[in-house]
């Protein structure tokens, strides 16, 4: 007993300091990776100023959208019945309404409701990449959604679960905003977070109400200014892959992280309301994965003028009509979907 007391007395400082360090570290790890912090639900987060801004942006861009719609309808190659019905909400003819709801769907294509999606699988750099060519007649068919319809940290669901909850035709994982405590978050016209993110990359992809893309730097513009200028979606991951038709990544300036081959997700725009979604497999025997440069070159080959890298690794997932298209990896190389904070999707 005396020996035991002596041991405790002699080691009490070491025991207490080790215990405190262990408790602190345990809390930090749990709070970072596990404990969910729901801040607000997406339904209630659409603040008045956000609604106003989105509405204003929609109003000011109506003309451009209408022009884009007419151009896209022509270029989509859809049957005139489908195109007209999708574009015109004013039509009251019941026959046309029925036609607007009819979509021709196969395992890799969707045509209808003013939406044309064609998914192709390409093989590059020992990797399977899934490329979805998306053409829309309405800009608001391009949307984002939050896991559990809630904004917060460690609030997650799989891409397919979020896609199903939002009736998505096509979905890819988003920017995993929940992984960070800072950084602008604007989703569907609502401002959720307005603190500038820290780290090497502060460049975001802004999507305007008319469906156009623009790269912005969080250190140069406030989140409110973005909202006021008509930004309805902000994707905050990066880096930019292509800007103004020029590659923004190169082998020379890549950091080790970017050089490595990994699963990747990216989004790009070719023309008005004409987008490319790319998800590349990786970390499997079949697919090594892509470097950022390889990803940028792939997406450039489709004629994208602006393209942006989204959350990759185990998060990289593409879902089409409720089916996971690619082979997402979790916990290393296990083929299964990983939970994420948000998705980018197409819905009628």
């Amino acid at each position, binding site marked *: 007993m005396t020996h035991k007391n002596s041991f405790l*007395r*002699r*080691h*009490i*400082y*070491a025991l207490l*300091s*080790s215990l405190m*360090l262990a408790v*602190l*570290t345990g809390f*930090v*790890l749990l*709070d*970072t*990776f596990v404990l969910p912090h729901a801040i607000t639900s997406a339904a209630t987060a659409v603040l008045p100023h956000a609604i106003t801004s989105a509405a204003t942006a929609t109003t000011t861009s109506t003309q451009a959208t209408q022009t884009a719609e007419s151009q896209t309808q022509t270029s989509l190659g859809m049957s005139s019945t489908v195109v007209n019905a999708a574009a015109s909400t004013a039509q009251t003819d019941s026959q046309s309404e029925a036609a607007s709801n009819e979509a021709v769907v196969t395992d890799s294509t969707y045509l209808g409701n003013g939406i044309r999606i064609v998914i192709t699988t390409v093989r590059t750099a020992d990797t399977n990449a899934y490329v979805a060519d998306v053409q829309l007649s309405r800009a608001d068919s391009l949307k984002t959604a939050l896991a559990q319809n809630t904004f917060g940290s460690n609030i997650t669901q799989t891409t397919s679960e979020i896609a199903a909850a939002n009736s998505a035709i096509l979905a890819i994982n988003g920017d*995993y905003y929940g*992984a*960070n*405590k*800072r950084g602008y978050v604007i989703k569907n016209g609502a401002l959720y977070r307005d603190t500038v*993110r*820290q*780290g090497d990359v502060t460049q975001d992809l802004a999507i305007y109400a008319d469906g156009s893309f623009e790269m912005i730097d969080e250190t140069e513009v406030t989140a409110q200014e973005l909202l006021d200028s008509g930004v309805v979606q902000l994707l905050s991951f990066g880096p930019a892959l292509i800007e103004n038709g020029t590659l923004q990544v190169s082998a020379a300036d890549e950091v*080790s*992280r970017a*050089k*490595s*081959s*990994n699963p990747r997700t990216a989004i790009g725009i070719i023309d008005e309301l004409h987008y490319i979604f790319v998800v590349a497999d990786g*970390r499997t025997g079949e697919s090594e994965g892509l470097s950022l440069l390889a990803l940028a070159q792939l997406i450039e080959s489709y004629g994208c003028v602006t393209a942006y890298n989204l*959350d990759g*690794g185990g998060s990289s997932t593409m879902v089409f009509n409720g089916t996971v298209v690619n082979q997402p990896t979790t916990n*290393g190389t296990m083929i299964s979907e990983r939970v994420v904070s948000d998705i980018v999707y197409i819905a009628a």
Partner: protein
Amino acid sequence: MSTLLRDGTPADWRKTALTYGIIAAFCGIFSVVYLQFSHKESSPFLVWLFAPSLLLGMIPALLMRRTRPIRRPGIAVRRVWNTAVATLTCGMLIRAIINISGRYTEYDRIYWVLSGVLFLAAAVIDVLLRFAKGTDNRVDMT
């Protein structure tokens, strides 16, 4: 940790150096293994995880072996110093794990500040003890 602090003889400092050396080696091996499974994602904090134990633990302990007893820090200072090294190592590990997972955290600041305070406290305690007790600075906190 306190097994390193029984006394300030050269043998004890050698034991301290050996223990810190083992911890540094463990950190180095841990880093290599972690990086093997991190899908080529890396962090300088993981690569240099062994450095605090080596530079702030093992090497000072080896130097203390050769120092005159009068110059050696007391047990209180050594305990606070060891805690500072442990805190710094933990901070680097946390930062590395979070960075490699693709996240960004500000929690690591707690570790940097805490270890800085502890290093400073060790220095202040050492000076105060020397000032208060002259050459006899061997005070047992327990």
